[in-house]
């Protein structure tokens, strides 16, 4: 299992991501600094972590999405490497055009941090296969701009194609159709606002996120 975590200036869940990946897979990921022009060869999994890349100035994820390493990330996505973007990582994937829609300021206008109920919408993705019949998880959320928006046509398409991976049990931010996480058409890119990497340890945020990492690992073996 060869994985990488991209570190942008202002990323702050990079350590959380590395800890979770190592805990679940037994292998430490390579931390890739944003200034590098390319990701390592032969990766099985890439994680774009949460945080405030470039201070979240202008729009969350906008500046990171246009940085050199993201250009290579797009290539890897096209080549089918599994990519998980969490929170700011989700915002970056959306700004980079790897996932459809937009993430806007939370409806309540405040930053929201809580352990949120999350519904597994489908276990037919390579990220969620391990959840089997489990329908409801508790996963921490922590964000200011997680209000998912897309036009009706896009939303219908996402639903129709089984690209909605997670929904909120308790919509905390006004997201359209309670959407918390979506995949791309190919199924190799998942973006989600909740933090599965903060739920891999009973002494921290619970263990409901473990299966997500196990699923990706299983899907590449």
């Amino acid at each position, binding site marked *: 299992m060869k994985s990488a975590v991209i570190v942008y*200036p202002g990323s702050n869940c990079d350590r959380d991501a590395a800890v979770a990946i190592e805990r679940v897979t037994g292998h430490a990921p390579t931390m890739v600094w944003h200034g590098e022009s390319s990701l390592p060869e032969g990766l099985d999994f890439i994680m774009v972590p949460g945080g405030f890349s470039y*201070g979240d100035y202008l729009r969350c994820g906008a500046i990171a999405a246009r940085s050199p390493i993201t250009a290579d990330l797009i290539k890897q996505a096209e080549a089918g490497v599994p990519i998980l973007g969490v929170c700011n990582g989700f915002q970056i994937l959306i700004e980079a055009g790897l996932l459809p829609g937009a993430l806007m300021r939370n409806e309540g206008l405040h930053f929201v941090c809580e352990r949120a109920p999350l519904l597994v919408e489908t276990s037919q993705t390579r990220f969620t296969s391990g959840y089997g019949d489990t329908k409801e998880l508790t996963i921490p959320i922590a964000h200011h701009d997680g209000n998912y928006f897309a036009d009706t046509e896009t939303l219908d398409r996402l639903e129709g194609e089984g690209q909605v991976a997670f929904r909120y049990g308790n919509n905390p931010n006004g997201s359209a159709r309670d959407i918390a996480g979506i995949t791309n058409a190919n199924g190799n890119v998942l973006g989600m606002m909740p933090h599965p990497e903060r739920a891999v340890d009973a002494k921290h945020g619970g263990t409901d996120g473990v299966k997500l990492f196990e699923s990706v690992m299983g899907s590449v073996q």
Partner: protein
Amino acid sequence: MSQIAPEERDADGITEEIALEHVTSDEYEIILKELGRAPNLVELGIFSVMWSEHCSYKSSRLHLAKFPTSGDKVIYGPGENAGVVDIGDGQAAIFKMESHNHPSFIEPYQGAATGVGGILRDVFTMGARPVALMNALRFGDPKHPKTRQLVAGVTAGIGGYGNCVGVPTVGGETNFDKGYNENILVNAMAVGLADADKIFTAAAREPGFPVLYVGAKTGRDGIHGATMASAEFGEGSEEKRPTVQVGDPFTEKKLIEACLELMAEDAISSIQDMGAAGLTSSSVEMASSGGLGIELDLDHVPQREEAMTAYEMMLSESQERMLMIVKPGREHVAERIFKKWDLDVATIGKTAEHGRLVLRHKGEVVCDLPLDPIGENAPKYDRPHFPAEARAQIDPSDLHQPEHLGETLLQLMATPDMASKRWIWSQYDRHVMADTAASSEDPADAAIVRVHGTNKALAITTDCTPRYCFADPYEGGKQAVAEAWRNLTAVGADPIAITDCLNFGNPERPEIMGQFVGCVEGMAEACKVLSFPVVSGNVSLYNETDGRAIPPTPAVGGLGLIPDMDKRVGFGCMEDGDVILLVGETKGELGASLYMRHIEGKESGNAPRVDLAAEKRHGDYVRGEIRAGRAKAVHDLSDGGLACAAADMAIASGTGIKLAYQGNVPHFAWMFGEDQGRYLIAASAENAEAMLADAKAQSVPVSVIGLAGGRFISINGGHAVDLIALKQAYENWLPDLMGAEPEARAAE
């Protein structure tokens, strides 16, 4: 010294008169005598900020010396940027608390945000990775027209900064009291971790070493911030507005990473953040604590604005900047790392043997001062003080008896100090860094943050009950320390040391100085008896407006260690059938209690007395029972007494409690009295037996006062109040207050 530029005036019209405003005429005389000549404007500006209360501690130093500051766990006590304590295995915890009161009142978002930024820098300057933030907030009357906007702005500012830098904000405390209407308090605390043998300090070591400036550029922001923090509000405080700075947490995050990266190389000799009084205090402190001198060429200071004068550069409080002295020839290492992080780095001077501060600007010497008078020999005042008048003890039998104790409990759970602060802390990222084991949302008396990669954890709390400090500064000071110690104990931690933030009114008024001295002496006594030394802290005086001072508020930040995470405990794990034990004695002390304030509607009575020896005995007993694995849930008793603590446990556990009254004080005094040194413990019947036996052996008063079960809190089978109603009362007060939030700036 003939070449010193005589006068410097700038476009914004900073004149000698303005600088002079901040030194008294007596102080000016001292300056003349020390220098043997008149200072120029730059020099006067430097004296004015360095001799400000904020930087010189001129009114407080004499009394701060009363604190015990050493102990076998103390690596660095007060005097460094933050306190450093040993947590075993070659690791150290580094922590400090600081105020940002005045700026937060003027501009709540930026004031609170930059407060968080400043306290983080104090901690990572010493080589620590910051791992937790806390905040202690005091706002005015909830109905005061400014309160909601201030709550909204301060909360957003703390979250805006802490969330972005990626350090979890794990806990804090929030009070509301009309005494803070015109002077809110924003105290922030940061905790970091480092290897005990890799701590960095500020004192310059060798002459001739290069001095580097790193971080953000210098602008005209916050000039005279330190002196502002040392002045009271009144007519004309509007004009003080431009001294507010804007924080840039993104730059701070990069600065943390860059500093830690550089600290891992063998390059830094000493390092200091630029806090209050920016370049002035950092350069003066580094040089004078090392017994050296320092020379700076201000032309090399990275500047954000054009045509900045020496005066402006020296007094600017632009954020996210550090000063460091590096080993000769290692400048390039710093340059490489700071460039990688897209931060400014410039060599701006060198250390020198001469014990002076010499500044050059545009080829001229604009300042040449001996360092001793600025720093070490700054004025130190023994201000007159007299003690507060003693207040009478409340005799419960003189008070009106509530008819339905359950209703009274319901009322108290929805009072401003008691009610849930979820509205605030849900805006803080409490989980980032993957080590938070208990934060504001979790039913535990202290926040718990694991030491990364180990099974040890830090326990962290902030405490102070200003009602008590106002009623009796000495007892209130004791109580603040004791409560912090108790909260750490209640989660199973060994209390180690405290930091503090002493917020008071104008020290030139003897009654205010009396409050200060009383609180300090009470705190010192508690610290001694509990072996809980003070390792860092901060003083904020002049918190008053038009002669109305805040209640004395010596906030205490306590740190403890949980050696084995598997032996920690909270108060949410009580189960049906558990026996409820009360540790400690109950005399029904109602003076200065929440009950008096909200049910009797009076601010009267003396503060509850803390018997420190009993406090220690009770706490050691409780910790022992936790470590022995017998206590399922533990909660300390504080605001609102036994009944409110029982309600907290019941709400958190989803299980009611049948209380059985015992003793010889009126029922309501037993339920709501705020006697100190007490805990509630829930345990299985079997373990409760063993605990009672231990208690007897250790002469700790412990008795069975109830049984867990059902959906109500009741007393002697009556006065029942439903848990759901209690929870609603507790949860809804603050959201209802903030509800529409009309005055809050919607467009943050």
